[in-house]
Every structure is written in C-alpha cells, then in structure tokens.
C-alpha cells in the first residue's frame, strides 16, 4: 500500500484524523514564563499532566497516558545521559527536541502500520531570566515551534491555542503573583473546554483555584530555588 504515493498520503491523512479523534477527551495544558520561573499547569482527573524532566526542564502534555509516559521517559533518559556524559549545562531543550524527541515522534507518526503516539506537549527550559526561558510546543508528528511569547498553550485543537495564549498574555500584568497567573490559566482552560470565544472573555475578578470534579496540577521551574534542581510542585489550595 505504501508503495503507492496516493495510498500513503491517504494513510497519513487517516492517521491525523485518528489522532484528532483519540485526542478529543484531552484538556489543555499551559506554560507561562514569569519573573519567578516557569509555571506549568494542567487539569485532569487524577492522571498527571505536568512532569519534571531534568534540573531546569519540565513538560506538560495531553494525550494518551501511555504515550505521554513514553515521551516523558524518552526525554528523561536523553537528558540524563547527556547530563552525565557531558554536564547539566549541556542539556538544552534545543538538543533534546531536535535530536531525541522530534525524530522519535515523526518516525512513529509516519510508520503507518504501527500505532501512533497520541500526544501534544509543551517543553519548558528555565533560564537565568525570563528572556532566556525557552518554551517549545511539540506536536504528535514531531513538528515543533519555539515560542517567541511568554505563554504557550497545548490543546487538542491547535487553532484555538494561539487565541488562548494571546488572551492570557493580554490579561496578565508582569507583577501578577503566581496564584493570579494560575487563575487566568484556569479561566482560559474553562473557555477552551466550553468552546467559548476569547474575544469577549473577561478576566477573572476573583481567585478561584478549583474546578469541581477535577484535579489541578501545577509546578514551577523556580528561578530562586537553591541547588541544581529547580522543579517544584505547586500547591494552589
């Protein structure tokens, strides 16, 4: 089948459709670069969505739990081997994405007789200042974009991601504390989940860090944390 170009393109197209269909139940995850560090946030029903990768690296992802786990393990292995064989400073997001993760996802996506990896992810790398932070949006087919803004959203529908990220950027002031940042992300989460437009969406007037029946998971790559490890889970209650 794959010897024929048209059949191959059709198979790839079917694959995209299959992945989109399987991703329907997924809810968005967020990464926001702030003066304190990089906040990563996800909302789920017990399944973790935010993970530590290395000293200054973390990931937030949605998709099939098994595939999120596969991506996470691959990233952790690559980062630790690199950190051990060279140094912690040599573990960079650019190298992790380009040489380990993106290729692995692309291969899995294009091998049409094997199951694809159903995952949409944001990888974050903490710098010494917000200007040096790196946020990368990584897709199920290996495609990825380095963000030029301080907010990245990953959602099952990539079209609304940008609107959500722009709304969060516009709504947040540089001096807002982390609970307020989380609150704004949760308002965007609710809007994305309900299919609401961001055009007329008002900024949340009060802090509400709970969603009934859901577990909010947040972590900070903390710029001020002493020692090599900068990741710490955040308790938003």
């Amino acid at each position: 089948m794959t010897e024929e170009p048209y059949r191959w393109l059709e198979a790839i197209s079917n694959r995209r459709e299959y992945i989109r269909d399987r991703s329907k139940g997924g809810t968005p995850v967020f990464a926001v670069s702030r003066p304190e560090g990089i906040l990563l946030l996800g909302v789920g029903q017990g399944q973790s969505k935010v993970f530590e990768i290395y000293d200054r690296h973390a990931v937030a992802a949605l998709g099939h739990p098994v595939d999120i786990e596969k991506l996470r393990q691959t990233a952790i292995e690559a980062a630790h081997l690199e950190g051990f064989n060279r140094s912690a400073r040599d573990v960079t997001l650019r190298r992790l994405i380009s040489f380990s993760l993106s290729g692995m996802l692309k291969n899995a996506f294009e091998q049409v007789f094997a199951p694809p990896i159903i995952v949409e992810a944001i990888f974050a790398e903490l710098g010494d200042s917000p200007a040096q932070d790196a946020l990368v949006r990584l897709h199920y087919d290996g495609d990825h974009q380095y963000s030029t803004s301080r907010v990245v959203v990953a959602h099952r529908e990539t079209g609304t991601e940008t609107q959500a990220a722009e709304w969060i950027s516009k709504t947040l002031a540089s001096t807002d504390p982390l609970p307020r940042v989380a609150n704004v992300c949760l308002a965007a989460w609710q809007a994305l989940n309900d299919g609401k437009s961001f055009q007329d969406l008002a900024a949340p007037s009060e802090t509400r860090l709970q969603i009934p029946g859901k577990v909010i998971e947040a972590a900070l790559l903390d710029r001020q944390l002493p020692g090599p490890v900068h990741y710490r889970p955040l308790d938003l209650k």
Partner: protein
Amino acid sequence: MTGDFLALLQQSPFPSVVGDGHNPMPLEATTVFAFHCADGVIIGGDHRATAGHTIFSDRTEKILELDSHSLMAIAGVPAMAFEMARTLQTAFEFYRRSQLQAMSLAGKVRALSRLLRENLPATLQGVGAVSPVFAGVESDDPGARPVIYFYDPLGAHFEAAAYAGSGSGTTTIKSVLHYLETWGHPRPGEMPLDQAVVLANRLLMTAAEFDAATGGVHAEQQEFATIKLLSTRGIRTISAQEQARFWKDAQP
C-alpha cells in the same frame, strides 16, 4: 522502564579510567568521618589530596551531596570516588524523575555497594580503591532518623551505631570518638550543633597531628573542615563563617 540509570548507562558507556597495566601513582589518603549528634548526623572531612609524599591539592571537596537527603564522604582514589558520586547523583535523580518517587534509603545504600563491587578490578590493580562513608535519611518519612553506613572496598556495607570514618587519619579519630561516646559528658550523640561542629574540627586537627596526608584546620586563617549536617529536613552545609563563630564561642 525500571528507573535503573546504570543499566541505561551500559547502553552508552562512559570510558573506564582503568588503564591497560600502566599504574600511575594514585591520589589518595584522607580523613572523613560521620557521627550522630543531637540535631542529626555530622559528616566532615579535610581538604587534602596526596600522591605519595606530594600534596596534590589542599582544596579538595570530599563531602559530596548525592541528593537532597544523602551524602557520601570519599576516601581513596579521587578519580574513582568522584565518578561514583557523579554516577549516584545522576542515578538517584534519574530514578526519582522517571519513577515519580524517591529511591528508598536501602536502595541508595545498595547502589553504592554495587558501584564498589563493579570497581573490583581497579581495586585489585591497586589504582582505584575507594572506601566511602555514606549518610542518608528516608526522604518520604518525616519521622525517619538519619543513618551512617561505612563500606569496605569490595562493597560490603555496615551501619554505624554512633560514628564511622575512613581514610589514613581515621584511626586516631575513631579512638577519640570511641572515648567520647563511652565516657564523654556530653556524648557526641547528645551534642547540639555548635558543639558538634567544634568537635568535628578538633577531630581533624587531631588526625592531622599524626597523619601527614590529612589537611588540618587553621582557625586563625579561617580554614575549617568541610562539615555538613544531615537531618530529616535534608542537608545543611555549615559555612566557614558559621564554623568560625562556633569555634570562637567555644574558646575558654
């Protein structure tokens, strides 16, 4: 996905430092020790590395933090010892991140045993013997008590009831600690932090008096031992300034 960094490392091995029969004079000798005090475990050591009769360095850090709740004091050949510490640092973090839980204290103790056993060829060749002291506390148990382990160069580990030491100056120190644990008032295990830090420095001064390979403490030049405190809250490095204050307060 077992969280076993050593198994992963074998797929992408780091070159061995053991050569093909060429035996350079190894860097060695040291005094490192650990003892219980009222606030946890004090682990300390000197800064000297020697090669035969030559002082190779007087700025060597021998008390290495493996993670937030475990420490290793190294004695023996630094090339091997530092590599073991680096391997364990990565292995513990790799396990914690990949398995989403910290490695148990028993697992960490065994991991160091395994590295020592795998180092057997270098030990037998006389170029790579390492005899460390390990101190750790269960990170997930708020009521856990810090423990001290010492090892033989082949990897057997033993829990120390009150104290442990390693290196060429340790015989002297262990004699003093035995005396204090038996007849001291207070015993080292009852000492608050300031007294324990002063004792650690005095122990090193005593070891340096009888062992040329142990770097001493020179309080008048603000040169103190490397001293860390391990407690249920984690690891705290006792800075030179803090040690100087404790030292000054202890003077009659």
